[in-house]
C-alpha cells in the first residue's frame, strides 16, 4: 500500500469517525463496578426501591416493638406470620419489622458500631439497641422485605452487596446527620427491623426512619 493511499484512507477514517464523536466521561468507581458485573448497581436499586416500596412496606408491616417482641416470645409462629420474614429455605432467623418509641438511656458512640440503648416500657432498663452507624451490623433491612429474594441474584456476593446498600442508604439519608453527643434522656421514634436475637442477647435494631426529640 502506498503512503499516499494509506494517508487518504486514514483521513477518510477520521472523517467517518468524527460525526460519531462524543465526549465520554471517565466512569466513577461505582460505574466501573456496574460495568464489570453486567449492569448490577445495588446502590441505585435500593435508592429506587426506598420511597416507593421499602418505607411503605415497613410502615404497613410494623407493630410496636413491645407487641412484636412479646409475641415472638410467646408464639414465634404467630409473630413470624404477622411481622416476620425470612427466605423460604435455609437457616436464617426470622427478621421482624417494628416501630420503636421510647427513651434513650445510653448512647454507645465510642465504637464505630454505635447504638442507642433504648427503653420502651419506662422501667429505666434498655429493651432494644438501635444502630446508628457508621458501622451497621447485619442486613436486617434487606432481610425484612418480602419482595426481595436471594434466588433472584447471581450469587452471594451480589446478594451481600444488595444487603449492604440498604445500610449505606440509611446512613447517608439520616444516620450521618444525627448528633453524637447529649443523646441520653431524649425521646426516640424509629421504624425498622431486627433479627430474632439468640437467647439472652439484646435485640439489635436497624432503623429505616428515625426521629430524635427533646
Amino acid at each position: 500500500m502506498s503512503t499516499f493511499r494509506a494517508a487518504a484512507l486514514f483521513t477518510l477514517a477520521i472523517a467517518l469517525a468524527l460525526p460519531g464523536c462524543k465526549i465520554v466521561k471517565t466512569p466513577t468507581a461505582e460505574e466501573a463496578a456496574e460495568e464489570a458485573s453486567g449492569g448490577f448497581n445495588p446502590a441505585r436499586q435500593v435508592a429506587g426501591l426506598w420511597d416507593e416500596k421499602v418505607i411503605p412496606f415497613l410502615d404497613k408491616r410494623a407493630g410496636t416493638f413491645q407487641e412484636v417482641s412479646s409475641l415472638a416470645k410467646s408464639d414465634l409462629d404467630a409473630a413470624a406470620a404477622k411481622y416476620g420474614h425470612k427466605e423460604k429455605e435455609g437457616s436464617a432467623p426470622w427478621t421482624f419489622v417494628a416501630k420503636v418509641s421510647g427513651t434513650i438511656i445510653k448512647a454507645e458512640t465510642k465504637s464505630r458500631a454505635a447504638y442507642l440503648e433504648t427503653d420502651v416500657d419506662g422501667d429505666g432498663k434498655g429493651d432494644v439497641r438501635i444502630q446508628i452507624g457508621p458501622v451497621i451490623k447485619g442486613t436486617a433491612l434487606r432481610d425484612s422485605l418480602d419482595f426481595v429474594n436471594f434466588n433472584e441474584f447471581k450469587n452471594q456476593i451480589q446478594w451481600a452487596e444488595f444487603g449492604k446498600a440498604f445500610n449505606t442508604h440509611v446512613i447517608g439519608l439520616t444516620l450521618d446527620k444525627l448528633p453524637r453527643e447529649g443523646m441520653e434522656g431524649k425521646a426516640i421514634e424509629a421504624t425498622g427491623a431486627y433479627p430474632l436475637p439468640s437467647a439472652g442477647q439484646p435485640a439489635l435494631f436497624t432503623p429505616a426512619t428515625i426521629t430524635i426529640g427533646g
Partner: protein
Amino acid sequence: MKLTRRLTLAAFAGALSMSVAMPAFAADLIAIITPSHDNPFFKAEAVGAEAKAKELGYETLVLVHDDDANKQSQLIDTAIGRGAKAIILDNAGSEASIAAVQKAKDAGVPSFLIDREINATGVAVSQIVSNNYQGAQLGAEEFVKLMGEAGSYVELLGREADLNAGIRSKGYHDIIDEYPEMKMVAQQSANWSQTEGYSKMETILQANPDIKGVISGNDTMAMGAIAALQAAGRKDVIVVGFDGSNDVRDSITSGGIKATVLQPAYAQAQMAVEQADVYIKTGKGPAEEKQLMDCVLINGENAAKLETFALTN
C-alpha cells in the same frame, strides 16, 4: 419428552449395570463428590452425607476432585456411568462447574450442591451453602473488637477460583474498612492450604514485624499462620479463622487462635441428601434452589461445645 429421555436413560443405565454384572436388586446409588479430605471440613461433609445416605438405604460412591475442574468432570462421568440417582457435590469452581453439573442434568442425574454455589440457577436442584457473608461479618466484628478497633493486620485469602474466597474477603472488608485505624499491611492468597499459610505467614512476618492481627479465609490457613507465628515467638498476634474445625477449637481452648466462624458442614451435607432422597422418590425439589445456612461465631466462650462442625448443647 422428558419421560422419553428418562426411559432411554433408564434403559441405558440398565444395560450398563448388566454389562458390569451388578446385583439385580442393588440399592440406588448416590455419588458424593468433594474436594480433598485433607481438609477436615470436606471430610466432615463427605462423612455427613454418607451417613445420611446409608441411613436412608442408599449405596454411596465417595470421590474427591482435589479442586481440579477436569478431574471433577471425569468424576461426574463416572457417577453418570455408574447410574447414580443423585450427585451431592462440593464443586471445583463457581464458573467451571456449571458445565459439569449441566452434563449430569442432561444425563438425567440431579445434582445437590453443598458449601460452594455456582454462578447459575436452574442447573442444580439445590444449592445449600453457608451464608459466608454473614459469617465473615461475624468474624470481622470479633476481629475488630479483639484488635481494639486499631492496628496493622494481614489477610490470608482462599483460592481465587472459589467464590467463597471472594465473599468472605468482602464480608471482612465491609466491616474492617469502616475502621480507619485498622491498616491492612499485606493480603495474600494461601489457597486454603495449611502449608502455604505457614510459609506465607513466615515471609509476611519478616517484612512486617509490627503486625497485631491476622484474619484468615479459612481454618487450615489460620492453623498454618498460628504455627508460623508461634515458631517466631509471636504469641501476641491475634488470629481469626473461618470454618469451625476441631483443630481450631483446640487452638482456641489452649490460647492460640482467638476465634473462628462455624459453618454447619455436617448438617448441610445431610440436608442435601435428604433433599436428594425426596427428589428421587417424588421428583419434587425444595421451595428455593439456593439456600443459605447461617454461621455461628466461635470463641473462648463456646469453643468447648464444638465437635465435627456442629455445636452441641
